[in-house]
């Protein structure tokens, strides 16, 4: 029979210290901040995904609804592939890929394991769980599918750039570049940086090689992706905030809060 071993750092034989942690710094600040920002994003994006309204403003299409491949879009640049009932939000068909990409992302995994699951809440702070199996079992075993979300997710920055270009040439009044166009372009570029700096991309582009010397081009690409990979956390947060901001901007235009400023 297997003996029951107490959880936490007070297993038999270790130094007897009752405190869960002896850290004196504000170790809780990072998980609290992460939870706050992620919860705000989840609440807002869920509301917008199910709202099924105000996602188009003239030629502008919210990034939460792009590519719009279902019934319900008027100005879509893409064919209607899913002629489903109009009460189902078009966002629900396409958000699964960016959602899956971010959920299985190595950076976000760190962020939510620490902040939501407290496993651990911070370094050298005991976690509250009595048992731990990591990513060895269902459902967390599916984190290993990250690269497939990456493959499909690579299409999204391209589609979003196309959307931004579409806002210029699809206008009835001859076309102009508005503030919304710039916001959509920035959003697409940030998403591209987030995607290209991902750990799976780094592996697939060259990390899996043993002999870099036999693949000089892939080695150069790997060094570039490695450099950006060190900033992956930054790209993850910035692109998350900007995609919500871009959607909010389109919503404001759609509800008539103000007119899109013409830049040139």
């Amino acid at each position, binding site marked *: 029979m297997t003996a029951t071993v107490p959880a936490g750092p007070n297993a038999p*034989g270790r130094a*007897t*210290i009752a405190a869960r942690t002896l850290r004196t710094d504000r170790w809780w600040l990072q998980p609290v901040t992460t939870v706050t920002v992620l919860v705000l994003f989840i609440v807002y994006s869920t509301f917008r995904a199910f709202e099924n309204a105000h996602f188009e403003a003239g030629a502008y299409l919210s990034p939460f609804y792009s590519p719009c491949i279902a019934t319900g879009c008027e100005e879509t640049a893409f064919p209607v592939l899913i002629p489903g009932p109009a009460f189902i939000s078009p966002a629900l068909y396409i958000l699964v890929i960016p959602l899956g990409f971010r959920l299985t992302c190595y950076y976000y*995994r760190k962020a939510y394991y620490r902040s939501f699951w407290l496993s651990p809440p911070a*370094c*050298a702070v005991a976690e509250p769980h009595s048992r731990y199996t990591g990513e060895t079992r269902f459902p967390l075993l599916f984190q290993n599918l990250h690269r497939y979300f990456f493959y499909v997710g690579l299409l999204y920055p391209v589609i979003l750039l196309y959307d931004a270009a579409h806002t210029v040439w699809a206008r009835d009044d001859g076309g102009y570049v508005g503030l919304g166009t710039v916001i959509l372009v920035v959003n697409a570029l940030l998403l591209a940086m987030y995607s290209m700096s991902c750990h799976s991309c780094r592996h697939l582009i060259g*990390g899996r090689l043993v*002999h870099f010397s036999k693949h000089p081009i892939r*080695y150069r690409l790997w060094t570039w992706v490695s450099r950006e990979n*060190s900033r992956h956390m930054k790209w993850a947060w910035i692109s998350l905030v900007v995609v919500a901001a871009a959607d909010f901007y389109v919503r404001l235009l759609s509800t008539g809060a103000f007119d899109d400023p013409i830049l040139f």
Partner: protein
Amino acid sequence: MAYEASLRVWRGDDEGGGLEDFLVEVNEGEVVLDIIHRLQATQAPDLAVRWNCKAGKCGSCSAEINGRPRLMCLTRMGTFDEEEVITITPLRAFPVIRDLVTDVWFNYEKAQSIPPFTPRERDEDGNHRMQQVDVERSQEFRKCIECFLCQDTCHVVRDHEENKPSFAGPRFLMRIAELDMHPLDTLDRRRAAQDDFGLGMCNITKCCTEVCPEGIKITDNALIPMKERVVDRKYVPKTWLGRTIGRRKD
């Protein structure tokens, strides 16, 4: 300027112990290990502490200072307020022997269990040749001084003693990554990394990287690349299907 620092030092052994308070003189430029030595010389001659180089290269003086795994010889007293109470305990993931000294045998057992470097045949002139560009990824991991701070802070074993048999810890998963990336090594270590050394237990929360005194990017450069290599070997649909229908044996 010298001042008296308030220290709380864990004293005891595997049968019990606790934190004891001391006031110890501190001079400008000193590190925590200097203060522990002064405490030993002036007030607690039987205080057990493991140390050697005093230069952050031997990895002996690992301890937890204000709850954070650190090397005592690299922790400057100047980083604390003069009024601050500084708590020093032994590493909490390993059995304590006495005072600040722990039994780190777990790590040596794990090191022994890793299949050694297995190079390919030598060239005709008897040499091994490899390009610098091919080996420099592995060289980052060779900076490891085996202080075992990463092993100590990793919650997989720190908070779950029961995981020790199945999890090698970041230091030794990094060793497996080092060998797997080595241009001369011939073993495929990917399946063993997952099945025998517990790579799947790692949830990449990066504490190992945070505490490494050598600044090795353990998570980003060793553990995650190794996880991706395991995906190549175990979870790519083609490989998975091959195993399922019996066309692939390993």
